[in-house]
């Protein structure tokens, strides 16, 4: 297992988990989110290919469009 930080909270995760698998594990809808990995946005099309690493800081947030 590895430990990452997900939206500020520690999260245990199996080895080789992708960003997309993390989102699915958290029961979140990928289409309503943007994802930041260690202070850099990761485009949604890349989530399936990028593996979470030990002590990664991952944050997700929803799109907003109001003005």
């Amino acid at each position, binding site marked *: 297992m590895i430990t990452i930080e997900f939206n500020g909270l520690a999260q245990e995760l199996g080895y080789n988990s992708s960003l997309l698998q993390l989102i699915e594990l958290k029961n979140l809808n990928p289409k309503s989110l943007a994802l930041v990995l260690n202070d850099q946005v*990761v485009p949604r099309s890349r989530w399936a290919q990028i593996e979470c690493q030990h002590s990664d800081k991952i944050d997700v947030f929803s799109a907003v469009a*109001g003005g």
Partner: protein
Amino acid sequence: MMSKLTDKQYIRYSSHVLLPEIGELGQLKLLQSSVLIIGVGGLGHAVAQQLAAAGVKHITLMDDDTVELSNLPRQLLFNEQDIGQLKVNIVRQKLSTAYSDCKITAVCKRFTAEDFYSVDSVNSVDLVFDCTDNFASRLLINQAVVNAKGVLISAAISGANGQLFCIAHSKQSNFHGSGCYQCLYPDDSNVSQSCAQAGVLTSALLSMASMQSLLGLNWLTSDVSQRDRLKGQLHLFNAHNLQWRKVTMSQDPDCCICTPSCI
């Protein structure tokens, strides 16, 4: 082209001129700048007022909405006598009276696909401000600015969450690196509701509008290397705990809007 401020301008803008990063030269840049503000609601009316007050030469306002009672608590340029009138006309009247250096053009229409194909409006300005209240318009504006190789300053808020960024074309890198709005939110995204639907505190909304204006003023008064540091950053605002966070944007190599194969 103006090379010196008039005596009256020197007095009017003295608080800017005193700033080492602006000075007379920066104020002259503002007095020669031209911007397009799309959406004249909560964000747009406040951005328009701040830029007009700062001495921006020409502001084009684009919106087809009329003033409603429920707008009044958060759209502070409007009062009860304005209800039913076009927002762009009211804002033009009020700001033209208050800020004589600023020419304001009111365009009473929504930004649509037609504007995207005739990008004159987007081409002829130094900056485009996206102040709209819906995802579909935001995608269209992004596409138009990317195609016109322009500069976009986009802000949005819903509930307590605000987001702000600047993207700009550069000769060296196109949009490579930071990408565009659609790299952040692909067009099949589910997006939270507007302010009218999800609610917002006016002070949170106006904080976003002020940061959007400030980003614009910084851009207009900056040189090329300073501008490199302003673009490609996504600023996230949490109105509950008053925190701002800055993260780096990334281009989606599959983006159908901003990757080199489609521009």
